[in-house]
């Protein structure tokens, strides 16, 4: 049973990669991945919250009474979400405008509460940190892949994360496949990527 720290980290990148394997936290996955930049921004914000809440929950696991553990998790998670929201407003205001309501909604993202309940509350600080970082990295990679695919097909561009520059992928004659930007396109993309991953995992 005893896994190494490295294994706790790497499991989040493939075996338990959140939107595809755990199929958790689909709301932000589908809603904000219109562009690569948005996807990566959301992923980084969620990773920060996940890492901090995992560490704190794990550190306090002997202090927190079992009966009120969920309210405690929510307080811890909500605190870090507000921190992320304020910091994002201070350093990346356009990204904050783009992500809008989905930043405060990280509070109810079931990946974060799920990892606090299923992992951090039962494991040591180092393992919990590795788990949070791994799952967060997996979440970010998934969002980036989905965002890049949808942006390239749906608008014919690729936005570089954390900057204003946008690469034009095709010539001026390109007709954007705007279905990919809409919500149904997100479902189709997610389904296809899940299918490819299952095929590759066999």
């Amino acid at each position, binding site marked *: 049973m005893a896994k190494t720290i490295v294994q706790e980290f790497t499991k989040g990148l493939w075996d338990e990669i959140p939107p595809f394997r755990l199929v958790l936290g689909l709301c932000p996955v589908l809603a904000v991945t219109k562009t690569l930049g948005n996807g990566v921004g959301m992923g980084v914000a969620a990773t920060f919250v996940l890492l901090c809440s995992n560490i704190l929950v794990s550190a*306090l696991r002997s*202090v*927190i*009474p079992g*009966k*009120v553990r969920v*309210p*405690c998790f929510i*307080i*811890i998670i*909500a*605190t870090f979400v*507000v*921190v992320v929201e*304020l*910091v994002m*407003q*201070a*350093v990346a*205001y*356009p990204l904050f*405008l783009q992500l809008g309501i989905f930043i405060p909604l990280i509070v109810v993202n079931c990946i974060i509460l799920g990892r606090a309940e299923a992992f951090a509350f039962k494991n040591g600080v180092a393992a919990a940190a590795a788990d949070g970082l791994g799952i967060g990295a997996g979440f970010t990679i998934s969002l980036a892949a989905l965002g890049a695919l949808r942006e390239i097909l749906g608008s014919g561009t690729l936005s570089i994360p954390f900057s204003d520059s946008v690469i034009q992928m095709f010539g001026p004659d390109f007709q954007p496949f705007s279905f990919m930007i809409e919500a149904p396109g997100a479902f189709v993309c997610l389904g296809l990527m899940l299918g490819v991953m299952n095929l590759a995992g066999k």
Partner: protein
Amino acid sequence: MRDIIRMIVVLAVLAACSGGLLAAVKSGTAAKIEVQQLTFVKGPAIQEILKGCTNNPIEDRFKLKVGDEEKTFFVGKFDNTPPAVVYETFGKGFAGDVGIMVGVNIETDKLIGIGITTHSETPGLGARAKTDRGFKESFQGLSIKDAIKVNKDGGNVDSISGATVTSRGVCTGITGSSDMYQELKPKIMENVKAFGS
């Protein structure tokens, strides 16, 4: 009983720590957030009003006390025409307050342009106040000292069709700021001069 006390204590301490941390982060980021909002929310409206100015109005700003509040004024300098100040005021729209950026030529006291910053008006109707060029341009040249009205009420502003309430709100918002502007005029002149023209 001991269990209950322990739960209450743990929750209370956790919530108190969280509150403290958030207060610290909030006050630590407040100044930066203000600059960001100036650049991305108010900035575009200010730049549009002061089109062709030779300075950066976002940087050349000063604050004056109005009652208990502080109002920010943005200075626009031009090559051939006198400088202008832009400030934000609020009018009552159809669905809440409408934020209006008002640009005034400080020598003639005439409006050089207006812009809408924040609003919650109906998309397609009142929300057009933000983008409708004809509506915004019809304010140009009106004097801040006069009451500004839509043409339905006998004024000179072309109201947006289907959005009379919003149009009226913008007019009364600007008219409402007239007293404040005239009262602060000497201080405004002083501050604008400090930026050199």
